[in-house]
């Protein structure tokens, strides 16, 4: 069995990085775009670990650890941001966010719209039984 050389790892890292980049450029879903960017970082991580092994020191691994930490941090922010954006547009499509552009440019509209989301199965409901609970005054006004 031939040992796997450094080059193979580097190629793997580059492929991961490239796939991530392509995903970032091609996916229109905000969450998937973010995950693609994370994939690019994972490609880098493969590079770093391979180099770390090759060089016989821990520098690359340390950087990888920190990278993962930072990625987690970014994920938290991404989640918050994407939630806010979803609330505003009721969609995760990134191309809905192109209001800020050169003033005389037309909006870029895809000829093929995204497929409609599949119809959600209505969640099953139990037949109500017993007396309906009375709502208090404040609650009503709040709602």
């Amino acid at each position, binding site marked *: 069995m031939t040992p796997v050389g450094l080059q193979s790892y580097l190629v793997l890292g580059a492929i991961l990085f490239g796939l991530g980049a392509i995903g970032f450029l091609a996916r*229109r879903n905000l969450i998937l775009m973010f995950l693609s960017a994370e994939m690019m970082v994972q490609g880098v991580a493969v590079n770093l670990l391979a180099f770390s092994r090759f060089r016989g020191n821990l520098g690359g691994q340390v950087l990888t650890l920190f990278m993962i930490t930072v990625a987690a941090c970014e994920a938290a922010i991404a989640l918050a941001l994407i939630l806010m954006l979803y609330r505003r547009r009721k969609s995760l499509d990134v191309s809905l966010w192109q209001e800020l552009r*050169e003033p005389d*440019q037309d909006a870029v509209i895809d000829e093929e719209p995204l497929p409609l989301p599949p119809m959600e199965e209505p969640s099953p409901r139990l037949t109500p039984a017993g007396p309906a609970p009375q709502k208090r005054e404040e609650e009503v006004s709040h709602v």
Partner: protein
Amino acid sequence: MFSDPRYYLWLIPALPLLAAAVIGVLGKAILRDRSHWLCIGGAIGACILSFMTLSAVSGLEGDRIDGHRCIRIYYTWFHAGNVDIPFSLQADGLTAVMLVTVTFIGSLIAIYSVGYMHGDPGFPRFFAAVSLFLASMTLLVLANNFIVLFAAWEGVGLCSYLLVGFWYAKPSAADAARKAFLVTRLGDVGLFLGILLIWVNFGYSLEYDVVFERARSFDNHGLLVVICLLLFSGAVGKSAQFPLHVWLPDAMEGPSPVSALIHAATMVTAGVYLVARCTPLFGQAPEAQLVVACIAAGTALLAALIALTQSDLKRVLAYSTISQLGYMFLALGSGTMDHRLAAVAVTAAIFHLFTHAFFKALLFLGAGSVMHAMGGIIDMRRFSGLRRLLPVTHWTFLCGAGALAGIPLLSGFWSKDEILAVTKQAGQPGSFASGIYLLLFFIGVATAGLTGFYTFRAYFLTFWGEEKVPHEAGHHAHESPPVMTLPLCVLAVGAVGAGLVFGPTGWFGGFLEEHWVNPEFPRRLLSDRAEHAHDYLVMLFSSIVALTGVGAAYWMYVRQPALADSLARAWTGLYELSRNKFYLDDFFYSMIVKPLTVLALLARVVDQYIVDGLVDLVGQVPAFIGYAVRPVQNGLVQFYALLMALGVGGFFLAILLR
């Protein structure tokens, strides 16, 4: 303290600057209608100090102070690396003459403006800007190195911008201001580049005398020519030479005192000053001088032709300024033969600058006075025969017009004559490009004739003929107040007498050469000056041509006004006209007037549609390219990311496959 000019030299720009600052801060709230006192005070203070500097400079016998033939003070501005960028001032003969001209005319115009700008809501703003201008302009001529010169150069451009756009409520004024600033900045790019090349090639120094000393042993001739041409491009922009002259006629949207101060007497001559100051550089590059002379003669002729048909009095004067500046550059470009001729050429140019400042400021102020009386109307078709209504303006305007036209013994005669004599000398067989210079000489003479014609055309149209006053004038149609006429009279005395005092005596040229910090100028050669400077044949020739021009104007606009009227109606009227007139009419018309009219129209069309259009087009280029690349900014995140990725890919390709 006042015995040594080094103690007060810095005050010359500082006084007007202080005035500008105080008016700028307090003008609107406190000073209001009293703002002019500070401005006039600053100007007169600077003027007195300038005269003191002049006398101090003339008192410098040889190498008395600091071993220099000039007064010099030195501060550090900032240091770039190991090299100090100095903020240093110097005063030699050239500087002193420029200082006196600028501050003297500036003071008079500031006084005049009190009457002219009276009641204007921007009264303090006007005087703040004028003070700032005086500060920048005096700094420009006091500078001892190129970088301070450049700073002041931009400063005067800024003031010009502020003052041209003074009546900003008029869209044309705001446009003119922008145009003036941007067109001159186009030339400034060249100037800055020239300065950078000087810095790099002359041992990282920008001080005049160091640079000029090193230029003498500079062996890369081609580069020196390039440097000279780059410096000249700055002068072309600032001094409104072809093809960057287009801003000056538009700049007439500013108040008349501004036109007199900035666009006639002082700022536009900064280019002449720059080239004169750099004579040691230009002297080594006769090719550059030839370019200067050709552009100058071309500009002089073109502008004079255009001035023939203008109906706006101030625009006539503006084109005339362009033309006269062309004369100055023609002189500067003609000193190719030897140092002797170069010295005479440069002094001739500065002498013309000096006399021109008087008579052109006078003419503009006169035009302003007319405008004042006519309720802001300056179109010569709307008024005529004002000589009884405005007696002082009329007589002083006549003095200025005579000086401009080159009527013998008036100031313009002497200085223009010196320039023509120099050009003729440069055209002597056997010297560098003599054929071209001979041609330029004849262009200069022809322009002298045209100058006589258009100047007096304007004069006769305004002050002769039946008395006609536009209705806008209302009850204003009377002579201007003394605060305006007094400066006119002083300037008229200068316009009449300055030439006679300084020209034939050779004082002016002698003083300049004596006290000029220029290593190449031989000193104490006053005796053989006259031989170069005054050529009696040229004098006679040019006076005849000029007087012919004046006579033609008289004939067309006073004796036969109908002729001039029908000329404007072009071809259909022509036949009828020539049939009904005398043979002389016919001859005069077909041999002189017709070709001239055609030429003038042609020049005007070329100027307005081609040159102006080209300059505008150059200004539009960035916007056009901008429109072309605009679609990349389409607002899509992924498109941006794609472009970033492509950018990285492009760099990979460029570097890996190099």
